[in-house]
């Protein structure tokens, strides 16, 4: 090969946001000594609303050898369309996908999208670096752990790659300067995995084992972000910010110096039923202004199907404790969970309205690859769109029309609820 391998990483999320996942992948690969001087990177952070033809145009203008996309259910359609165009315009370009939308169904993705060469399953940092190393050395890729690819036209999956045990081995995209903190649009990950196994969710990415970055690393990232001029708010993407009381104390201690200077954390996901006065105080100390939580549903059958616990009294108490400390709560409900009737859905709306949490978000179920609901959809009577974002069409309890009514009614309730005196701009 003449010259370094040109790699273009493409994030397609929301305007103004940068892909943290691609930041990790690039930061890791850039520090891999095998690739030093042999691979050059460019990252394009675009929007899923961008026209795939122009995304392809921008990508191909960089004349890449490898193009990598981070794929979620929200951008998958646009990514696939972009890949089709790139493949036809420049057949020699290697197209690699990773992310929660494609990892759990890697073989299926390759079988149904001939334009895609490789799917990186699970955590991408080590696998993508190994893949690039193989490309640089012109070696076969089909035995690289965590890779699903084609061999002689047949889709083959190499062994799984175990999760990275020591997360600090993954360089910080912020501390390495790959990502620039942006006010209100910056996200930090303090751990991976999730102790809960809610069957509609893939936040834990199939792992209930929690692996944390070191507190020193988290503190360094927080310091860097919180002291960036113009940044007054950022967030954590941790599935449960109040994972344990001890950890919450540590996080509050890290955040407190910046919170006292006015830096705020927004939309932190918490287990609201654990929030007592002491936890609410810690959240406030950490500068948390808004938290996001369930209950997702209050129907007993759906709670059981989703492997979720729900104690209305503890939930209400948690909301109240947050309110006492000036923390706005966003309550989430999902329409179309298995077991939920239309009446259950209404009960959920009435429950959250009665709590007056500050914000209510009602969405319809998306049956995501890798989740329990995806694996057992048929036994739950779930019918959903095969195409991403895999929206629910009907359930055993709610037909198509009922679900659409639930969706529109839910939207009306949330819009009427959020319109308040003095709320001003949206």
């Amino acid at each position, binding site marked *: 090969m003449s010259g370094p391998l040109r790699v273009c990483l493409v994030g397609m999320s929301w305007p103004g946001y940068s892909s943290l996942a691609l930041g990790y992948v690039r930061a890791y690969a850039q520090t891999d000594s095998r690739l030093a001087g042999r691979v050059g990177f460019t990252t394009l952070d675009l929007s899923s609303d961008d026209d795939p033809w122009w995304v392809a145009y921008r990508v191909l203008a960089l004349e890449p050898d490898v193009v990598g996309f981070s794929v979620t259910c929200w951008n998958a359609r646009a990514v696939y369309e972009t890949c089709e165009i790139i493949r036809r315009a420049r057949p020699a370009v290697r197209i690699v996908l990773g992310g929660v939308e494609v990892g759990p169904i890697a073989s299926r993705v390759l079988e149904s999208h001939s334009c895609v060469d490789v799917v990186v399953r699970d955590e991408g940092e080590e696998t993508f670096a190994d893949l690039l190393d193989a490309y640089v050395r012109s070696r076969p890729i089909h035995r690289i752990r965590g890779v699903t690819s084609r061999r002689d036209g047949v889709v083959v999956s190499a062994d799984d790659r175990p999760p990275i045990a020591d997360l600090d081995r993954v360089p910080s995209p912020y501390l390495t300067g790959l990502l620039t903190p942006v006010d209100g649009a910056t996200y930090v990950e303090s751990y991976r995995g999730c102790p809960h196994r809610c069957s509609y969710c893939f936040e834990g990415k199939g792992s209930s084992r929690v692996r944390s970055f070191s507190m020193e690393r988290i503190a360094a990232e927080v310091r860097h972000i919180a002291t960036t001029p113009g940044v007054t708010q950022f967030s954590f993407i941790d599935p449960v910010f109040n994972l344990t009381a001890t950890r919450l104390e540590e996080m509050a201690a890290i955040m407190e110096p910046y919170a006292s200077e006015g830096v705020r954390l927004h939309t932190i996901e918490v287990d609201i039923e654990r929030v007592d006065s002491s936890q609410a105080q810690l959240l406030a100390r950490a500068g948390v202004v808004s938290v996001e939580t369930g209950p997702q549903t209050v129907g007993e059958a759906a709670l059981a199907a989703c492997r979720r616990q729900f104690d209305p009294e503890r939930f209400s108490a948690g909301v109240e404790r947050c309110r006492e400390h000036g923390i706005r709560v966003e309550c989430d409900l999902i329409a179309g969970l298995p077991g939920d009737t239309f009446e259950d859905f209404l009960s959920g*709306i009435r429950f959250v*309205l009665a709590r007056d949490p500050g914000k209510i978000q009602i969405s319809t179920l998306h049956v995501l690859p890798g989740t329990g609901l995806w694996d057992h959809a048929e036994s739950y009577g779930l019918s959903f769109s095969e195409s991403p974002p895999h929206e629910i069409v009907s359930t055993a309890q709610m037909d198509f029309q009922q679900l659409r009514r639930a969706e529109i009614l839910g939207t009306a*309730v949330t819009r009427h609820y959020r319109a308040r005196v003095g*709320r001003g701009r949206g």
Partner: protein
Amino acid sequence: MIPFRAIGLGSPSAACGACFPGAGKESPARKLEEILGDVGHQLSRTRAGQRNLLLMGAEPFSHPGLPEIVRAARTGGADRLGLRTDARALVRPENASGSVSSGVSLFELTLAGATSGTHDRLTGVTGGFEASLNGMRTLAATVASAGAVVALRGLIRVCEHNVFELPEVCGIFASVGCSSVRCEVQRSARSKASLPWFQAAATTGMVNGTWVVLAGVGQELLGDLAAHALDPIEVQE
């Protein structure tokens, strides 16, 4: 679902003069002191988070005390404040922007038909339909340009004289950004003959992302449409 307490300002809003005695006829506005007393009373008897008021009964923009009433509600701690209006006055941008900036969080917009022929005849206001439409469009543009978190909602009193225009009315409300439309069905329209119009109105709302409420119709008549009896807002008069 979300409770609002009604604060009466005086005369009724647009509706069919034949079916609703007094509709379209101006009656003296209530005294400002009485209204302010009502505002204070309703706010004091409601817990925080549920202090939602809807100014209704007369065209609020024709009440000289409107700015003071809005100010009293806001300073008194109202969580949500709504105006029920035929929107004619909102064609003046200063009314639309002034209302939004002063804290009004809900506009309940009234129509009596989907055409000037029906609307103007039922309300007795010549040119009223066009004026209302223009006011609604001005409001929608004001809300959009201000990026304000304001809810819009439609209201139509449905009788035998306008039921056939119900789907189109829902379409009009949806086009200006109403999240919900309340169709208050009067006795003369509560019959099987009206069902196709109810069905079409509900469907028009659904495909435009607007929830249509069919109020005043028995569940047995609504049948498959029973869910449309649900109203995101409950006005307690």
